[in-house]
C-alpha cells in the first residue's frame, strides 16, 4: 500500500507558502529550482537534468516524499529524501537566497522528518558543507547531531608519483560490489554499497603485498557522452596489514592504469587510515562536509 507523504497546507510567512511533493514537478523544473537555491554558495555544485536524474537514481531519492516549497507558483526552495530500509537521507535542501530567514528551510526540514517517520525510519542522516553555518544551525535546531567530518578530494590527471608495488588483480563490477559488501565500517549514504550498486561502471582491484598486507579498491569509471572522463567513488579497504602502505599501492596502481583521467571522490572520512595515501598521491582537498544524524521517534510529528 502506498503511504501518502505528508504535506502542509500553508505557513505563516508573508506571503504564505505551501509544501507539495516534488513528484508534482518535472525534472527540468526541479533542476532549475535546485540550481537557483545555490547560486550564492561557495561550492554551488550545479546540476543539469542528466546529473540530477542520475543523482535521484543512485541515492534512492523518492520524489513523492521529497518536497517543494511553493508560493503563488514560485518555487521558494526544495528538499529531497533518500529512502532505504529503516533509514532516510535528507539532501539537496535549499532555499532561494531572497527567501531565506522566513521559515521555509525549517518547514521543509520538519516535513521531511515527518515523512521519514511515516516511512517508519529509525534514523535520518544528512551532510552539510563545513562552514555553512546557517544550514548547520538549522540542522542542530531540528535535532541533528554531528557524526564526523568527510572530505571531498580531487586529483588532476597524471601518473602516480612512484612505482606501485605488488601485482593487482583487476575485478569487474560483480566482484567489486561483493568486495563492498564485505565492509563492516559504517558508511555515509553516498559511499554505501547501496549507492555504488546503483551506479554504472563500477570496477575494482585487489592487492596482496609480500608482507602479508591485503586490501582492495573499488571505483567508478565515470563517463560523459560515452567517453571515460574521470575516476570517482573511490573506496579503499584494508583487510589485513598496513593501511597506509596498501593505500599508496592501490592508488598508485589505479593512477598508473588511468594516467589521463581526472579523479574526484567524495566523503572520505577524516579518520580513514588511507587518507594520508591520497595526499601523497597528489589529491587536493576541495571542501569538507559534516555528516549529521537524528534518531526518529514514531510518536513525534514535526
Amino acid at each position, binding site marked *: 500500500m502506498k503511504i501518502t507523504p505528508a504535506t502542509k497546507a500553508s505557513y505563516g510567512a508573508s506571503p504564505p507558502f505551501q509544501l507539495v511533493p516534488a513528484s508534482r514537478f518535472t525534472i527540468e523544473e526541479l533542476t532549475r529550482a535546485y540550481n537557483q537555491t545555490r547560486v550564492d554558495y*561557495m561550492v554551488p555544485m550545479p546540476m543539469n537534468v542528466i546529473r540530477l536524474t542520475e543523482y535521484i537514481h543512485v541515492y534512492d531519492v523518492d520524489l513523492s516524499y521529497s518536497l517543494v516549497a511553493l508560493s503563488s507558483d514560485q518555487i521558494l526552495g526544495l528538499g529531497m529524501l533518500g529512502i532505504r530500509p529503516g533509514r532516510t537521507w535528507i539532501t539537496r535542501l535549499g532555499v532561494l537566497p531572497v527567501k531565506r530567514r522566513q521559515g521555509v528551510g525549517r518547514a521543509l526540514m520538519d516535513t521531511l522528518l515527518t515523512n521519514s517517520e511515516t516511512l517508519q525510519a529509525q534514523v535520518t542522516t544528512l551532510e552539510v558543507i563545513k562552514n555553512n553555518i546557517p544550514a548547520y544551525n538549522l540542522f542542530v535546531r531540528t535535532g541533528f547531531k554531528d557524526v564526523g567530518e568527510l572530505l571531498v578530494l580531487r586529483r588532476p590527471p597524471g601518473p602516480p608519483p612512484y612505482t606501485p608495488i605488488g601485482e593487482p588483480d583487476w575485478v569487474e563490477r560483480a566482484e567489486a560490489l561483493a568486495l563492498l559488501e564485505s565492509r563492516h565500517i559504517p558508511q555515509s549514504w553516498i559511499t554505501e554499497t547501496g549507492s555504488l550498486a546503483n551506479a554504472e561502471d563500477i570496477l575494482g582491484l585487489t592487492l596482496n603485498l609480500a608482507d602479508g598486507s591485503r586490501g582492495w579498491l573499488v571505483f567508478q569509471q565515470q563517463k560523459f557522452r560515452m567517453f571515460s572522463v574521470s575516476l570517482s567513488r573511490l573506496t579503499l579497504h584494508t583487510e589485513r596489514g598496513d593501511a597506509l602502505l596498501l593505500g599508496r599501492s592501490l592508488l598508485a596502481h589505479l593512477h598508473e592504469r588511468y594516467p589521463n583521467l*581526472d579523479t574526484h571522490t567524495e566523503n572520505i572520512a577524516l579518520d580513514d587510515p588511507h587518507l594520508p595515501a591520497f595526499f601523497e598521491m597528489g589529491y*587536493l582537498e576541495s571542501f569538507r562536509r559534516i555528516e549529521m544524524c537524528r534518531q526518529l521517534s514514531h510518536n513525534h510529528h514535526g
Partner: protein
Amino acid sequence: MTTILVVEDLPDNAELADRVLSSQGYEVLKASDAETGFQLAVERQPDLILVDLGLPDVDGQTLVGWMRRMPEFAHTPILAWTAWPEETAAKMVQAYGCNGYIRKPLTSIPQFMAQIAAYLR
C-alpha cells in the same frame, strides 16, 4: 578583435562579464556548460578563457584539463572564476593548469578589467 570565452552557468554572472568585457572592445563568447564551452573553444580559438569551476554538466577543472591536453590551448590564458576560498582556489588552479583565478563575486570592475588585460599581454 580580441576574443574572450566566458564559460559560466549563472546568467547574471555571464551577462555581467559580457557587458563589462564588451564595453572594453573585446568580443565575448558565452557558454553555459562545459560541453558548449569546449565546442566554442575549439571552433573559435579565443584569446582568453574564463571558466566558472562549478558547471552543471562537467565541472570547470575537468573542462580545463580537456583543453590543456590539446596543443592548440597550450598557451591560451585560462582563468578560473570561483567563489572558493583563496587557498583552495590557488591550489586547484595550479594543479589543473589555469593561469590564475578571479574571485566571485566581482567587487571591483576596474580590478577585473586589469586582471583580464594582464593575462592578455
